[in-house]
């Protein structure tokens, strides 16, 4: 049993006895201290509780078993070391037992770690790697022990380790292949969503700005030219008052110009209502409410400049709601509330009329499209006989 050891490490009688007497003294002092503390402060069984976990401490059977195994392994390792010491040392055989116990603990820890992975391929791969690590540990430690205790210098586990590593990697690759692909697909998808969100909001903002620019161009361009045209026709007419035929032609031309001006005006109004462009949402809504003569109560709490796109959407929501109230609701009261709420413009329009509005009607569907283009939401509450409330939320990014 005695292993060949170098002369430098050969134990002398003093070194044999010194550790043992120290150990005995430690045991004695621990025992004394333990007794003293049992007597003085701890309830009976406190020491046992510390070393032996109990089910009552809120542990599951599995956790209880695992902690018991770990502690038993530790105690066994100590016991074997003690026996070796008492048996007069020599070849350090407990190392092999320690290896066995260590593998037990390692399996326990590895299994616990693997089990905490999400179920599926990732957990299976973790289990495989736990086995690989356990096997590799057994191999390497066995080699280490033979190297240290038996002086075997060849690193014989190399091929086995290579095999284990290759097998583990191959298994991981196969098991996680789909997952890696999906992750890449998902990343690409997310990037695409980000891009679409960004470009859509840019498009909406650009569209609102473009509409205002077109309205301005119409005003300063075509509309102004047509007005100048009627002005010149008017001047021409004054010069041919005595030529009825010519005057008739001029008046016809003027009528056409007037029709063109009226059409352009309606077009421009549909793009951006002038009051909205000039004075903003609140003034435009007040004018709208006055126009319907519904006695609409208006409450506005807006603390910042609104983007043209948001402003227009809010305006058209309110306009559509008030038009519906005036046309269909037969309401006594009508109200509009516009407020800043957590980074969004909250618009509510309500009446106490007959309700029963069709939330999928063409008018509301058009509004919904307009609101959703801004990542907003539109809700309609319109139970029969309970009035109608239109709620829109428009993020102000």
């Amino acid at each position, binding site marked *: 049993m005695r292993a060949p050891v170098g002369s430098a490490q050969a134990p002398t009688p003093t070194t044999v006895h010194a550790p043992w007497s120290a150990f005995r003294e430690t045991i004695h002092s621990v025992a004394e201290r333990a007794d003293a503390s049992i007597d003085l402060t701890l309830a009976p069984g406190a020491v046992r509780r510390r070393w032996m976990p109990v089910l009552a401490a809120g542990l599951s059977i599995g956790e209880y078993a695992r902690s018991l195994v770990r502690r038993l392994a530790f105690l066994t390792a100590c016991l074997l070391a003690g026996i070796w010491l008492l048996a007069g040392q020599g070849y350090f055989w407990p190392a092999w037992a320690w290896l066995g116990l260590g593998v037990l603990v390692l399996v326990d820890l590895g299994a616990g770690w693997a089990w905490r992975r999400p179920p599926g391929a990732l957990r299976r791969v973790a289990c495989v790697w736990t086995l690989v690590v356990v096997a590799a540990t057994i191999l390497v430690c066995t080699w280490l022990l033979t190297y240290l205790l038996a002086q075997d210098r060849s690193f014989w586990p190399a091929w086995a380790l290579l095999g284990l590593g290759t097998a583990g990697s191959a298994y991981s690759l196969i098991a996680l292949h789909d997952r890696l692909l999906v992750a890449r697909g998902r990343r690409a998808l997310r990037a695409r969503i980000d891009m679409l969100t960004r470009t859509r909001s840019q498009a909406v903002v650009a569209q609102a700005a473009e509409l205002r620019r077109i309205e301005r161009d119409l005003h*300063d361009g075509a509309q*102004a030219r047509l007005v100048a045209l009627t002005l010149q026709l008017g001047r021409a007419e*004054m010069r041919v008052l005595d030529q009825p035929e010519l005057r008739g032609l001029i008046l016809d031309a*003027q009528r056409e110009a007037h029709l063109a*001006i009226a059409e352009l005006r309606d077009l421009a109004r549909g793009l951006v209502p002038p009051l909205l*462009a*000039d004075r903003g949402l609140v003034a435009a809504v007040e*004018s709208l409410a006055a126009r319907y003569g519904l006695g609409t109560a208006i409450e506005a709490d807006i603390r910042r400049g609104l983007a043209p796109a948001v402003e227009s959407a809010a305006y058209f929501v309110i306009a559509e709601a008030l038009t519906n109230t005036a*046309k269909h609701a037969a309401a006594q009261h009508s109200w509009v509330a516009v407020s800043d709420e957590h980074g969004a413009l909250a618009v509510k329009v309500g009446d106490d009329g007959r309700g029963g509005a069709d939330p999928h009607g063409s008018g509301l569907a058009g509004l919904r499209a307009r609101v959703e283009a801004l990542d907003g939401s539109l809700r309609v509450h319109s139970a029969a006989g309970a009035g109608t409330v239109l709620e829109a939320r428009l993020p102000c990014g």
Partner: protein
Amino acid sequence: MRVVIAEDLALLREGLVALLRENDIEVVAQVQDGPALLRALAGHEPDLAIVDVRLPPSYSDEGLLAAIEARRRQPALGVLVLSQYVETAYASELIGEDSAGIGYLLKERVGDVKAFIDALHSVAAGGTVIDRQVVAELLTLRDGAGEARWGLTARERDVLALMAEGRSNTAIAESLVVTPGAVEKHITNIFAKLELPACDDDHRRVLAVLAYLRVAR
């Protein structure tokens, strides 16, 4: 009559100036924005200011605000505001407390030279001229989304709208190609239907109608 014109579009400004000169109206200054208008008015003390609603630098209601400010400084000044669209809210603000010497017309009305020149004289003399479009809009609204609550006929609506532009019975008759007698009959009917006291004076007639339509506060 001496006039200051505030209009930023050269095409229209020059056309207007030519039109006024042909009709023996002196244009003492032409400006392109609100502050310049106020300076010109203080310098020239004209009888009338013709102002475009939309002026630089803001291109919103700069002209309207300048016109209101000009009236505050010189209450006797006649102000005719021109616009490519009419807003009843703007009409109401412009008229404010005192509607004497106020005009609010669509730009294309310059095409009807005679009526336009009449309107200029009327406003400079302290009359009130409101575009028929404002009246038409107010009538539709007050009527409750197009329902003929007051039972005005289409012809009566036309007459009412022309009345608001400050036109005389003769001018209305000419415009609608009817006899002055027929116009008088329509007017009597309108005043009866709107329950307004009848009156002959053109300016007071406009006011009565506008007050009824609640344009004037």
